Structure formats: C-alpha cells, structure tokens
C-alpha cells in the first residue's frame, strides 16, 4: 500500500500547522487518496498506475499548501446573511468590519495617505482654534463660583457708548450703599509703582485696590493676609501685597517677607501678604504689587469721570438681569439728583467672564472658529469624493456580494466602518497637527501679553479639546461616510456584472454626488477666501495707515516721578528740562522731545473741554479730549504736521498766558466753520482757559485702528507733569541710544526708576500683536481653503478623464481634434467651478456682514475683493483642470478603445 501520509505530510510542512489540525487534515486526505486508489484498482488499473493517478490528485508540490494557507489564515468571514452559525454577533462583526477596513486602507496607500492628510489638516485647524475657544470662553474663570462675578461698565444711553469705568467715584459709592444685589463690590485701578531700595530702581506694574478686592474674587494669599477694611484709608494704608514673581525676583523669596518694609514711591510700606503665582486678574494685566486704594474724601465726592473700575459678587439667588435692573433704577435716581454730572449715564452689569473674553479677543477667535469649520467641511467633501471614486472602483465586489445575498444594511455598515476607520486615523493625525498649531499660536503671542491672558495664554490638549476633536471626527465620519456607503450598497447586480469594459462607469447618482460635493466645496472655499482677504486687507491698511507721526527710529523712555521726592511741580519741570537737554546733547540723537504721555505708551489723560466763548454745553453733551502736555520740540521730534498757527516756543513760559494746540478733529468739533486760532478753550475741573495757538494733525495714541479723537496739547513749561515720556529720534537704527538715554536720566537722578526704553515701533507692534497673529492665521486659512478646493477639482476632473477614456477614444477616432477634447474636459471642469464660485460669492455677500465690526477701512462688500477673489479662483480651477485635460488630449484612440 502506498504511503499517502508521507506525501501529504511533506506538502503540509511549510504551513506549520498545530499538530492536532495537521493530523486531522492528513487523515482526511489520506482516506480520500486511499478511496481513489481502490476505485482505480477495482476499475482495472494496475497498482502502479492507480498509485500514480491517485498521487496526481495532489497536483503540484505546493498547490495544496497554497490553498490551505489562504484558508487557515483567512479571518473568519462573517456569514453573509445574519443568523448563520453562532458567529454573527454584533460586536464580532463590527470588529471584522474594522479589520477589513484596515486591510482596504493598507491595500491603497495612495488613497489612504491623501485622505488622512486632508482630514488631518481640517481637523487639526479646528482642534487648535477650539483649544482657544475652550480656554477663553468655555473654561470657568479660576475663581470660586466665578459665574457670580460681574463687572460694571459705564454706559451713555444717548450717545450709545459703553466704557470700562464706573461713571464717577461718588456715583459708584452711592450704588454700593443703595444696591440690594451684591454681597461685595470692589474698586481697582491699574498702577505702576516706583520701587527703590532692594535693588535697581524699577517700575513695577500692579494695582491700587479696595480692601476687599481679593476677598470678592475669592483669591487667597500663600503668605500673610489680604487688606483689612481700616487699611483702605488715606494716611493709614501703607501696606502692600506682593505677587509671587516679584517676591522671588526682587526679594529672593525671603521667608520673612511678611512685616518687612519696602520703599514704594519713596515712602515706606509694610508687606502684609504674598499672592500665589497662579493668581491672575486678566483685566488688570500683569500685576505684581497691590496697595490699598485709600481714596481721599475729595476723591470720594468726585462726580466727574473716574479712572477706576469695579466688579462685584452677586448675592445668592440674584440673577444678572435683576442686578442690571437694580443698577438702572439707582442710576436713574442719580440722574435726577445730579443732572449736571449724571445725565444719560448709567452702569451696566455683565458677567466678568464675558468681559475678559471680549478683551482677550473672543470675537476674533470666533471668526477663526467659523472659518476653520468651513475648512473642515471642504476637507470632508474632498475625502467623500475620494471615497466615492474609490467605492466606484469596487463596484463589482459589491455587486457580487449583493448577488451572494449581502443585505443593503450589511454593506452600508461595512462601508461606514471603513469610513470611520479612515476618519479615525485622520482624527489622530488631526489632533497632532492641532497640537502643533496650538504651540505655534502660543509662540506667536508676545510674552508681554501672554502673562495676563486667562490660563496664561497656554492651551492644552485637555479632555474638552480632545472630546471636541473626537466628536467632530465621528460626526464627519458618519455624515460623509454615508454618501459612498448608501451609494454603493444598492447596486443592481446585472448591469454591473454585464459591464464589458472594466470601467464601471458608476451609477449616475454617484457622478452627481461628486459634482455636488465639488461645487459645494468650491463655494465654501470662496466664502473663506473672501472673508480672510477682507480681514487681511483690513490689517494691512491699518498697519500701513499713517499714525500722524513718523514712528521709525524713535526711542521712547517713560518714567513717573515719585511725589515724595518731587513734591512741587517746578521740580518736575526742572527734571524734565535737565533730562531733555542731556538727550539733545547725545551724538546719535537728531531731535528729541518730552510729553506727559506718548503714543502707545499705555498712559493717557482725558479731560472735558468746551469753547470758552460759546454757551456751555448741556449736561451729558460735554466733549472729552485726550490731554497731553508737551515740550516745545515735541511736534518736530515726532514729525507731527502743523496745519495752522504755530507750535509752542519760549513765549509759552511759566507765568505767561496759557496756550494750547488742538488737533483737526477737535477744531472741527468746537469751531466747525471758524478759524480756531486765537479762540479760547476751557478744560478740566479748574476750568482753566487757554488760547489756541496752533492746529496739528490727528495722531493715533492707543490703537492703529482707532477713529480720530479730539486731542489737545498744552506746554509742559506751563503744565508740568510727573509722568514723562521722552522721545528721541535717531538718524538710523542706533543700538547704543537706549543705554545713552538711561544714563542721561540717571545722571540727573540716580534713583529714578525707568519703566521702559523701547523703540516706538516696538511699542506699536506689541499693541498690534494680537492682530498680527490673527492675520497670519487668516492668511494660512485662506491658502488652505484654496488648496483644498483646487485639489478637489483636480481630483474630480482627473477621475472623470480616467473614467471616460473609452468615450474620449471613440470621439477622437471619430475625428475630434485634441483641442476639442481639451475644450470638452476643461469646459466641464470650469462649469463645476463657476457654479461653486457664483454660489460662494452670493453666500459671502451675506456672511461678510457678520465681519463688519472687525473690518477697518474696508467695507464688508468691498467690490475689489468680491471681483478679484472669484476671478483668481476660477483661474486656479482652470489650471487644475488643465493637467487631466492634457492627459485626455493625448489619449490614443486605439489604446482607449481597448481600455479595460
């Protein structure tokens, strides 16, 4: 008897099966060969012949192994119909779908890479922007029960403006006494303190606050205590609280800091507490030192405008609306009681979180949020198109499975699972991209600002952000996976199986869907591009617009003279003159000047002004103007244009009749049809009267985007100031001038703290930094949207040409010229693009209205943008069609007709 076992075993060796399994197979096959052998012998064959024929059943040496390998390693496919065996449980079959999906993705690396990258870009952008939405708008403020904290904002009912202040100190104190809505209210003002002793003289940023400031917020010190009520009185309040940063840097973290005496503004203060490094109050900015507000009786009774700000903690059970109504009632009464000062003025109540978010740029973040949402939709449309094309090429596979009994639902589930696997990888890559994006934005935010943004401008891939990323990935995966899933689960077997050519042309519906997706994504890309172009244009215009002076090569030094050392105003004048003379003498300096506040210096004064010879304005109608005292050479140093009259000179000396210079806007407001030169202007609490000697250009003091405001200037000689900003213009950039200016100041007073010596351009850049980051982001988003849109068109056109190669071949064979073929392809592509562009422009007309508030000197329907962007897009789309079109032109009819 021939040894079948040995033959079979040898052929199974390479499979390395489990011994029991191998034994089973060997036994079964042995039996088969034995039966065959016996049948042949019985049928008349010789033993040798029978043996040879039986062995022939095993065919080539490795055929059996190959066949068995596929079976043994094949993942158990589910029974095509439910109810088969015991294997069709939901989780099991979903796991199979996922495995199958992974295999499909592995088999098509090109498709997978493009799809995952596209999704990663879209999801990543959303993750990065959402992390800021989360940090600035969703996360609660870092105080206990932060939703009970409200800020107060002064509001002029007639003129409609809302400011950060409290109407007036006296009014607010009345409100404090009369209101029934707040447990605690606290006042505060940002302040810069001159610190001397314990190191170099330094100007430290901080605030003067009412005694219950920390208590109302719910912030606790890490050392010592916060202020006591009786310390918040003039003369008594020489106590101070340090920030952790200052405690470490200036006092070396002295453990015995509590009770230690420090010198602030030349006076002795006792340290009573230290705040932790995690304490932040974003509205105050960077703060490392606090002293009590200690209002004098005069200040308390002041019904004029106040530089103080306030917040409060609501009583339990009181809603913000109720508090607002309470405030409106109280200020209504004050209006009637004090018509001269309180007419039309009221105090609004709003959540502190909203105010912080607004100041930190929440509107800009929200604009970015909607833009990246659109970009994600564009990316998903691209991927959906890719999946539709990919699924179409698998039409036969689905047709056969359908013929084998796979239900529509089953195939939908499988295609959806494949889609979700793809989106999952896109989501993971997107989270990584998003992290990169977050770090980039963080890096771009200047350190100066970063310190006082909520959460220190630091964003994390925390649970909320990850949850958001997962959520949008899942949502998009399901929504955009349904299209190909639904499309290809319903194939009719016969037409697909009957296809003679290898190109399944796909159902008409699939082609339609792809066209709709492409047009839709182009429309969205156009909306994004128009929006970002308008915003970027705004930024460029604001940066390029003249601020009213020449800001290049101007060094600015700011300081504040302590009242203890410089009690009389003639000392301020003397100091200022001395320093200015020394600065003039510096070889690098071409011209120099001084002012009580310089542009973008962060300081400024306001005063109420009126034309002296005209009837007094009605209460509530008074005009306010920026008020600056300047040296005679200030205007020439800053290169501010003089329109009429003269600038200050030696005639404007102390004791002489006071002069003033006003800007064009103030001239127009007070003397609309007259020459202001020689007129008299009255200002301030003392109702000082000055004679107008000159009219200068409007200048920008705080923001590049500010509207022209009334501004008035008086001579420093006649109105000396304790806060001074020195401006020095150099011929070119001069690395040594900053040190030279510091030395000039310290030559006059060794102990005078200087707050900063920086180029004016830097000061402007710091203020503008937020817009700068935003603009860079917008440029990126605009480019991304365009790129994705163009890829979409290219993909569809490329696919279209492949699909219709057969048809193109026929046309060419029938006499169509290459340029006609080109025209046909390009025409189709352009049609899709144009539909998208037109729809996009119409949508943009509406969408850009929402941007109007954020635009500067650009209308929301700026014609140039609305014409240039669509044309540019159409041209780029044309180029994208061109490559596949050229491919179509070169189709050899003979090859095409044979194309399978």
């Amino acid at each position, binding site marked *: 008897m021939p040894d079948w076992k040995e033959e079979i075993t040898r052929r199974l060796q390479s499979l390395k099966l489990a011994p029991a399994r191998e034994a089973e197979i060997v036994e079964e096959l042995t*039996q*088969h060969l034995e039966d065959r052998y016996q*049948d042949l012998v019985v049928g008349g064959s010789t033993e040798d012949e029978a043996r040879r024929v039986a062995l022939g*059943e095993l065919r080539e040496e490795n055929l059996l192994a190959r066949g068995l390998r596929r*079976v043994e390693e094949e993942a158990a496919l589910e*029974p095509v119909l439910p109810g088969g*065996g015991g294997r069709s449980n939901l989780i099991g079959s979903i796991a199979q779908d996922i495995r199958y999906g992974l295999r499909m993705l592995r088999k098509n690396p090109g498709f997978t890479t493009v799809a995952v990258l596209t999704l990663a870009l879209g999801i990543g952008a959303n993750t990065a922007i959402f992390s800021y939405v989360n940090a600035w708008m969703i996360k609660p403020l870092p105080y206990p029960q932060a939703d009970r904290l409200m800020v107060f904002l002064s509001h002029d009912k007639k003129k409609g403006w809302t400011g950060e202040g409290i109407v007036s100190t006296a009014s607010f104190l009345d409100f404090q006494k009369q209101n029934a809505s707040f447990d605690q209210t606290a006042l505060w003002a940002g302040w810069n303190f001159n610190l001397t002793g314990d190191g170099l003289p330094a100007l430290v940023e901080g605030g003067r606050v009412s005694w219950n400031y920390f208590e109302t917020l719910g912030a606790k010190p890490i050392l010592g205590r916060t202020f006591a009520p009786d310390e918040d009185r003039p003369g008594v309040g020489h106590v101070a609280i340090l920030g952790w940063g200052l405690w470490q840097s200036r006092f070396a973290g002295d453990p015995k800091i509590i009770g230690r005496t420090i010198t602030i503004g030349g006076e002795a203060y006792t340290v009573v507490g230290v705040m932790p490094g995690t304490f932040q109050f974003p509205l105050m900015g960077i703060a490392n030192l606090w002293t009590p507000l200690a209002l004098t009786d005069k200040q308390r009774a002041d019904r004029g405008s106040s530089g103080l700000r306030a917040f409060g903690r609501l009583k339990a059970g009181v809603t913000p609306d109720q508090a607002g109504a309470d405030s409106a009632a109280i200020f209504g009464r004050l209006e009637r009681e004090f018509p001269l000062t309180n007419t039309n003025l009221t105090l609004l109540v709003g959540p502190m979180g909203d105010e912080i978010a607004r100041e930190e740029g929440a509107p800009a973040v929200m604009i970015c949020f909607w833009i990246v949402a659109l970009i994600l939709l564009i990316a998903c449309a691209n991927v959906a198109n890719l999946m539709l094309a990919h699924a179409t090429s698998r039409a036969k*596979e689905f047709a056969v499975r359908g*013929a*084998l009994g796979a239900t529509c639902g089953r195939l939908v589930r499988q295609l959806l699972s494949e889609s979700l696997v793809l989106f999952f990888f896109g989501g993971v890559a997107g989270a990584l991209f998003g992290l990169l994006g977050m770090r980039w934005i963080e890096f771009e935010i200047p350190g100066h600002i970063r310190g006082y943004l909520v959460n220190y401008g630091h964003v994390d891939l925390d649970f909320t952000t990850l949850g958001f990323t997962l959520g949008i990935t899942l949502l998009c995966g399901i929504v955009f996976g349904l299209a190909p899933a639904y499309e290809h689960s319903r194939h009719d077997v016969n037409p697909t199986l009957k296809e003679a050519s290898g190109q399944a042309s796909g159902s008409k519906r699939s082609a339609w869907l792809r066209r709709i997706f492409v047009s839709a994504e182009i429309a969205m890309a156009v909306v994004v591009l128009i929006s970002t172009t308008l915003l970027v244009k705004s930024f460029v215009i604001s940066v390029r617009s003249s601020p009213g002076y020449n800001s290049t090569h101007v060094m600015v030094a700011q300081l504040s003279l302590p009242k203890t050392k410089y009690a009389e105003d003639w000392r301020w004048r003397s100091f200022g003159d001395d320093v200015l003379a020394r600065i003039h003498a510096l070889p690098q300096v071409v011209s120099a000047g001084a002012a009580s506040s310089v542009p973008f210096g962060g300081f400024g004064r306001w005063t109420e002004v009126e034309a002296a010879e005209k009837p007094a304005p009605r209460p509530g109608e008074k005009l306010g103007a920026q008020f600056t005292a300047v040296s005679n050479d200030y205007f020439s140093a800053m290169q501010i244009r003089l329109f009429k009259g003269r600038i200050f000179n030696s005639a404007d000396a102390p004791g002489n009749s006071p002069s003033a210079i006003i800007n064009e806007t103030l001239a127009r407001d007070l003397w609309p049809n007259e020459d202001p030169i020689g007129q008299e202007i009255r200002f301030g609490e003392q109702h000082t009267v000055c004679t107008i000697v000159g009219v200068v250009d409007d200048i920008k003091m705080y923001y590049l985007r500010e509207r022209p405001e009334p501004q008035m200037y008086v001579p420093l000689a006649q109105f000396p100031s304790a806060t001074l900003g020195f401006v020095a213009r150099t011929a070119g950039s001069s690395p040594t001038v900053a040190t030279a200016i510091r030395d000039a100041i310290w030559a006059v007073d060794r102990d005078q703290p200087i707050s900063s010596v920086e180029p004016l351009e830097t000061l402007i850049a710091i203020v503008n930094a937020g817009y700068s980051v935003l603009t860079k982001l917008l440029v990126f988003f605009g480019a991304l949207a365009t790129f994705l849109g163009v890829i979409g068109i290219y993909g569809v056109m490329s696919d279209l040409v492949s699909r219709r190669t057969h048809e193109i071949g026929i046309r060419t064979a029938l006499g169509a010229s290459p340029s006609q073929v080109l025209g046909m392809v390009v025409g189709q592509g352009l049609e899709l693009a144009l539909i998208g562009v037109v729809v996009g422009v119409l949508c943009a007309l509406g969408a850009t209205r929402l941007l109007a508030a954020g635009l500067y000197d650009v209308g929301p329907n700026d014609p140039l943008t609305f014409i240039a962007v669509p044309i540019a897009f159409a041209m780029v789309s044309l180029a994208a069609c061109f490559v596949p079109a050229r491919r179509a032109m070169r189709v050899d009819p003979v090859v095409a007709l044979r194309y399978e």
Partner: protein
Amino acid sequence: MEAKASSPEWKKVSAELLILSLVEARPRHGYEISRLIEQRSGGTVRFYVASLYPLLYRLEKRGWVEGRWVERAGQRRRRYYRLTPGGRKVLAAQRRGWQAFVAAVNRIVEVEHA
C-alpha cells in the same frame, strides 16, 4: 476587480455552488463529493484534492457547512459534511444569481446567432 465569466471569481462562486448543492440532500464526505461532481458533469468538471479540500474548509469556516467525523462499523472514520441553515440560504441566493447570469449570457449568445 472584475468578475467575468472566465475569471477566478465566478469559478470560485460556481465551485461553492456545486458543493453546497451536493450536500443539500444529505451529508457526504470529500471523496463522495468529488466523485459525484465528476460523474454528473460527465467528466467535464473535476475537483482534485489540492483544490477540493481547501474549498471545503473555507465553507466550513464560513459556517455554510459543518464537518463531523463519523465512524461506521467495520470502516475507518470519515469526515462527513452537511449543509447548515445559513448555508441553505446562501445556496438559494447563489442559485438565483447563477440562473440570472446564465440567462443573461444566453440572451447575448442568442442575439449573435440571429
């Protein structure tokens, strides 16, 4: 990936159809199945060991057939395969698909001759 009549896809489907239909009536072992196919096709279709058993095992893994060792008196044990309820449904679907395909091909072939 196409499935023309001559391509491996349809060959695979038709092979499955053959086996499933042969075990529909009663359980059979591998040799019996291969003999029946050869006989009923008049020698046109033949399944060798190297292709038959991988196919049987695949059908078994899918749950369309169930294999069991059976020992009869006086004989070595053999592995018998029977159709499962799931396999029954698949067989019905495959039969329909095959008949539709054949009808379609016939329609084309007839037209040519006309």
